[in-house]
């Protein structure tokens, strides 16, 4: 099990009047080669949770394990049963040498990843990550080229300034910057916000490819059609708590839960459900996109496939 969270609590601005509890008692396991969706309203704690996955944030209390690296912050209790905040604070001040290794294993693509761009050429910017993790110049360039090919940016881009690229191209450069580090686990925080439809489609193809190559994917998103099409597991957060941990198929059939948590199932799925209600024996588990729905209808009607 590459990632395991145990009773993780996190509060922003702890001990201040504007403190805000963002995660509460999170216990989750992410297996090897998983494709997991993380959904929930804005402010439900998705980004906060994601930042715990590569030690950008450390839990106030709780335990995070990434492969063999353990970040443990057990609750310190005084003799009288009260929480010993002083001791907890001390725990957080300790140096954590394993952090670099963790960040190499878990790559995070943030909401607007183009913020991280700063070099004068695309190739240099993408090779920045590998260099930080101890690659030589040549190795880093090699990895950068490979990553740029993955995001469909060809050689003509190598020497261009990243700042004069279009929004979509910039984002691809930024993602290549993470891919070049060759993380085993790729975490994406609403990565397609602000991309056009084609950019989004290409992007999800890319993620699917990476998954097929053996990487684990954890994806925070609001796009339910993507969840249905690609993910095998879905975790729903609400006010910093895990309220559902299931599969897309089960989630989108659970009408009660959907209405109470204001999640809208994808149109394809609702359409298939109404077809079933009207007596068509469609197998819901086969429905992932419009084309699979069409195939199902054709199968039922006995037409050609």
């Amino acid at each position: 099990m590459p990632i395991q969270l145990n009773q993780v609590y996190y509060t922003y601005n702890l001990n201040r009047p504007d403190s805000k509890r963002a995660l509460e008692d999170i216990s989750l396991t992410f297996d090897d080669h998983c494709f997991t969706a993380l959904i929930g309203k804005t402010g439900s704690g998705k980004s906060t949770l994601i930042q715990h996955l590569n030690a950008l944030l450390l839990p106030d209390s709780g335990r995070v394990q990434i492969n063999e690296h353990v970040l443990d912050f057990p609750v310190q209790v005084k003799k009288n049963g009260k929480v010993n905040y002083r001791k907890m604070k001390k725990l957080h001040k300790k140096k954590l040498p394993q952090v670099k290794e963790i960040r190499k294993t878990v790559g995070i693509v943030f909401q607007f990843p183009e913020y991280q761009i700063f070099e004068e050429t695309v190739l240099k910017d993408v090779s920045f990550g590998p260099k930080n993790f101890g690659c030589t110049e040549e190795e880093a360039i090699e990895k950068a080229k490979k990553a740029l090919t993955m995001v469909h940016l060809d050689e003509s881009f190598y020497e261009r300034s990243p700042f004069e690229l279009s929004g979509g191209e910039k984002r691809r450069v930024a993602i290549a910057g993470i891919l070049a580090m060759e993380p085993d686990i790729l975490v994406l925080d609403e990565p397609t916000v602000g991309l056009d439809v084609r950019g989004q489609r290409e992007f999800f193809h890319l993620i699917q490819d990476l998954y097929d190559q053996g990487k684990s994917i954890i994806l925070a998103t609001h796009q339910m059609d993507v969840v249905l099409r690609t993910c095998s597991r879905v975790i729903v957060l609400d006010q910093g708590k895990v309220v559902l941990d299931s599969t897309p198929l089960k989630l989108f059939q659970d009408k009660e839960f959907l209405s109470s948590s204001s999640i809208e199932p994808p149109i394809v799925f609702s359409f298939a459900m109404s077809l079933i209600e009207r007596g068509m024996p469609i197998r819901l588990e086969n429905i992932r996109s419009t084309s699979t729905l069409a195939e199902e209808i054709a199968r039922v009607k006995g037409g050609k496939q």
Partner: protein
Amino acid sequence: MNTKLGKYTSFNTLLHHMDARVKLITMIIFMVSVFLDYGTTYMNLVVDLFLFLILVILCIIGKVSVGTIFRALKAIWLMIFIILIINVFFPATKTGDIAFSINDFPVYWSSIMNVIFIFARLVLVLMMTNIFTCVTKPLELTNALEFLLFPLSLIRIPIHKFAMALSLALRFVPTLQEEADRIIKAQASRGVDYKQGKIKDKVKSIVSLIIPLFVSAFTSSGQLADAMEARGYDPNAKRTKYKTTHWSIVDTISLFLAASFLTGAILLAIFPYDLFSALQITLPKLK
């Protein structure tokens, strides 16, 4: 995370509710009284001590952390040390009592007292500015500044434009902070370690923060200008206030106390009164 030096924190205290103009005036009065000369260094230190006590009380009333202020002093220990060295080895006066000697080199009491005096002034100025900004919203601060600079508008200096520029700049401090936070996290995910590494790596990691920060600052300032223009902002128009301040009895009392303090300080500066000789306490001679 503990409270940052000089950062406004919204508590519900007397100081937070006071009129920003009164707070600004009071701070200026304190500032002036720190830099007045009360005859002897000893008397200056007595006034400084008095002021220090007032400021500590204000810290307690306004829930400002005194600890944060003293932690901030860590950064200037080196400066204090250099001042000490200069004062000891190049004394301003070679008269007065000698405190002790290092290898026959005399160290004068006046040198030591000078350093203490400079240190005291530094602490006081740091404390008052910190208290002021901790209990005053940046926007109120600008409004107060605009109010106090009002006479300048009589000679046709466009202070409200300055005030607008200042309030926009202050408005963007937290935004930039958030932005920097976000960039630091993104770069940390790419393996940047801002704390460790060789000098060359450190420079590189700072560059990887500064450039994106500038890019986003320019973008957001451009967007802001567009948004202001789209909503019809005219720099030459007469400005009205969205928030009117309420003058309360606390403000009146505070203003009165501050004014009395200033009067006292000026009187003491004009008619020096040596407390120590009056009480017949002998201290090392400085001159």
